[in-house]
């Protein structure tokens, strides 16, 4: 019974840790907009956590710059299992306008498995909420898979 409750709770209370890897702040602002009264992602139990140790979902925005590469790797490592990685915006996927720059070492797939990628420059808050909601479902699946 507990297993079921836990697995169900996984999707109902995903805590987010946000990593900025050289983003232009556009996506960051939209992510913050998601938890404002207008969009209110807390309806689904989303909460911004202060440390990767508490996080379930790691949200990455920005192309991966060479400076932030190691930091990102360390932060991702410190998140406890089960965890889900979500990328916001086009930058982590393709590099967007920063592609080809000497200091950009994207895309994110090179370093970690990305579970949900939210495209757009910048994605709308509605899109972000949907992406995060899907991430929460993936979290539950991962937890169920862990038990087996």
């Amino acid at each position: 019974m507990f297993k079921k409750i836990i697995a169900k709770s996984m999707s109902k209370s995903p805590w987010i840790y946000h990593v900025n890897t050289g983003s232009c702040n556009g996506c960051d602002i939209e992510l913050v907009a998601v938890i404002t009264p207008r969009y209110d992602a807390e309806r689904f139990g989303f909460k911004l956590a202060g440390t990767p140790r508490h996080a379930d979902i790691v949200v990455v925005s920005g192309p991966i710059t060479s400076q932030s590469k190691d930091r990102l790797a360390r932060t991702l490592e410190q998140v406890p299992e089960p965890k889900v990685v979500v990328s916001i915006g086009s930058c982590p996927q393709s590099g967007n306008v920063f592609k080809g720059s000497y200091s950009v070492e994207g895309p994110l797939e090179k370093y970690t498995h990305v579970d949900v990628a939210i495209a757009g420059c910048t994605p709308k808050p509605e899109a972000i909420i949907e992406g995060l909601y899907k991430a929460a479902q993936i979290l539950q699946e991962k937890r169920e898979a862990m038990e087996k």
Partner: protein
Amino acid sequence: MSETVVTMLTNAFSVLVFPGLLFVMIVGLLLAGIDRKVLARMQKRKGPPVLQPFYDFFKLMGKETIIPDAANRRVFLAAPIIGFVSLVVMVVLIPIGGYTPFGITFNADLIVMLYLLTIPAVALIIGGSSSGSPYAGIGISREMVTMMAYELPLVIVLLTVALKVGGGSFCFSLGEISAWQETNGALITHWELIPAAIAFLFVIPAEVGTQPFDVAEAETEICEGPLVEYTGAPLAMFKLNTAIKMFVMTALFTVLFFGNAVATEYLALNALIVVAISAGITVLSMTLAHAVCARLKIEHLFKFYWTVVTALAAISLVLVWCL
């Protein structure tokens, strides 16, 4: 022989089910949920479901527990459990609606309550300290300063109540304070104690560590302070501790300022009344402040408690002493 068995069973029941472990877990998490829901409504949000803290708790139970290399493993794991257990024991000691499961001789005393209240905070501090993180170092220092800040007004409020009830004789027992109000009316209706009650309302959020006074666990500046390295089940325990503290503090308020004046003959009804009053106080003292104020700086917090709140409590003390 059978009598002892029955006594033992009732005792075990009161420790493990009501008003102990199970009851307090459910009520504490429920209060936390109400707090979050009402807060959201105050901010014109829809807000999370009332059961959200339960989801959080169970989710954290299902996460991996990482013990950092720098941490002292034993202390790191023991700290949340110690804090939790002492909170549960404290709840058993608080006479909810005059109900004392272990008889009056093992009733709570004001000073004992004061000291038992420090144990969860100390557990948080020691646990955070043992994790070896510098963020936790700053967090525990803030937690400790917060504790020093609210302790002074809390002490004065408790002594004021004891003076009022004792009236020239010595009275520290929560049970007596509770019973006194049955004949003399709730203490909240005695006008000279109203400043003390307000001071106590201010003490509650600092003791629990909710928004304007949560400098110790400021997630945006010091990454959750003492909790920075905690994951999984121990973190769930700490979250549960915070929730239970809400109930303990509000129940203490109920006993001190309403006492048996609101008690009826039926235990279940009493429990319901106490939970209802607790929820009301939670909204009044914690949610309202959370919605209205931004987080204070630690030195402002200290100054606030040692001036405004202490002054309120001291006014009551002097009034009670003089009258």
